[in-house]
């Protein structure tokens, strides 16, 4: 009897200690649901489709990840600024939200290998005829608050001694484009992908894509809690397999209408 009890106690202790070391990967599998954060006002990476359902490249990645994990996927819509708080508060397990992998940010959150590379670009009314980045000097420029292109633009403007009086930040990507459309600003900075999507709509028929931000590739990764090393390992392998198994190209083709450029695939393979 006593031996049986002792065995039971040991078994319980063993179980709890197993639970105590359960990491994010275990938690997600045991829960049966992946809480995946995506920025849904950033087409074609994340947006709402005509049925008001989340769609886009990042959403496809969430679904692919859920599939390999064998769990359901719960997509959470985030703004740029919500990405980190959502991870820290445990609302999301992972954020697939085009997060630029700066070393400063990596002190706070864990980054995977890169999964996409953007270019930052200017979009303006065709009358403004912006040839180079230096032409922005006396124009009113805007960008979405808390994005890397805002940081890059401000760094550039500071270096040129332009000051910040002509700069306006917007709460979201949609607001930035609304501000441009209404003429609150002459030009905004966004990613080449988002700009290409917007230019296809009739509202932006009179607008043109301008020069790229000089000397800058925006390399983005998936983010998770910094100390969840095993989970980040898993996500890294997932990204490698996305390319190897052709899922990356499939998602790219679906949302950009063409195959992924060979140089993009190669730079992701090289983890640049």
């Amino acid at each position, binding site marked *: 009897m006593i031996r049986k009890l002792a065995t039971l106690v040991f078994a319980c202790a063993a179980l709890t200690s197993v639970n105590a070391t359960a990491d994010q990967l275990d938690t997600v599998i045991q829960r049966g649901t992946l809480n995946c954060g995506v920025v849904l006002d950033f087409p074609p990476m994340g947006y709402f489709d005509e049925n008001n359902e989340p769609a886009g490249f990042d959403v496809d990645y969430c679904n692919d990840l859920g599939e390999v994990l064998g769990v359901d996927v719960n997509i959470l819509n985030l703004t740029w600024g919500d*990405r980190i708080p959502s991870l820290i508060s445990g609302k999301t397990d992972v954020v697939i939200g085009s997060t630029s992998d700066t070393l400063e940010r990596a002190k706070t959150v864990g980054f995977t290998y890169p999964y996409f590379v953007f270019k930052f670009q200017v979009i303006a009314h065709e009358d403004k005829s912006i040839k180079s980045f230096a032409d922005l000097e006396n124009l009113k420029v805007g960008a979405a*608050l*808390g994005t890397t292109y805002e940081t890059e633009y401000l760094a550039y403007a500071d270096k040129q001694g332009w000051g910040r009086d002509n700069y306006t930040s917007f*709460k979201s990507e949609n607001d930035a484009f609304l501000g441009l459309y209404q003429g609150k600003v002459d030009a905004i900075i966004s990613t080449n992908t988002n700009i290409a999507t917007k230019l296809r709509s009739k509202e932006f028929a009179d607008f043109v894509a301008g020069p790229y931000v000089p000397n800058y590739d925006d390399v983005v990764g998936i983010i998770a809690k910094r100390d969840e090393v095993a989970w980040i390992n898993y996500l890294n392998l997932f990204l490698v397999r996305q390319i190897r198994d052709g899922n990356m190209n499939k998602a790219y083709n679906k949302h950009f209408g063409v195959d992924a450029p060979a140089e993009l695939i190669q730079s992701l393979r090289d983890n640049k």
Partner: protein
Amino acid sequence: MDYEFHWNIVFQNMPELLNGAFVTLHVSVLAMLLGVVIAILLAIAKMNNTKFFCHVATVWVEIARNTPALFQIYMAYFGLGAFGIHLSPYVAVLSALVFINAGYLTETFRGGFQSIPTTQYSASKSLGMTSFQAYRYIILPQMLRRIYHPMTNQFVWSILMSSLGILVGMSELSGTTQRLQSLSFRTLEFFIVAAVMYFVITKLVLFSSSLLARRLFKGEI
């Protein structure tokens, strides 16, 4: 919670945060002053017998009090923008706050005016005062004393509401905090410091308004 705080990044950016705090204080003080002036006019208009003024004041008060501040700031910025009127983020937030402050304070002031017996007005007239003098020396001082506390409440409220300026990209305390935290992702640290700053600002405002009250009303409050 397994989270390590990194405070040094916040201290490195303290000048920018203080700058943001100054903008917050600046816009709310200005919004309060303008709001008080407009509210006095609206309160008088509301008690006026001329239907037109009374209606204007009523519509103002009803809209200001029964719609969210968020919506009003958005309307001032993007709403007017749709008609080609482009206010800067600062002016958009300022005008929305003035609109709200005036709306709320109108009712406070009207209550204040009505709490002064009309016989006092008649009495000052019989002493040979003009209408202006009666208001200036008899009615307003008593009214202001009665509504001083509700008025400071509105002031604090407008300081806190100015944080909605972040919606239209204003670089006040919240906007600056949001931008700085996106560089390092040290969200908690920056937000905690910003909250402390809001607390200090409102406490300072309350303290100086009680000092002012002591001077103005000589302790009779």
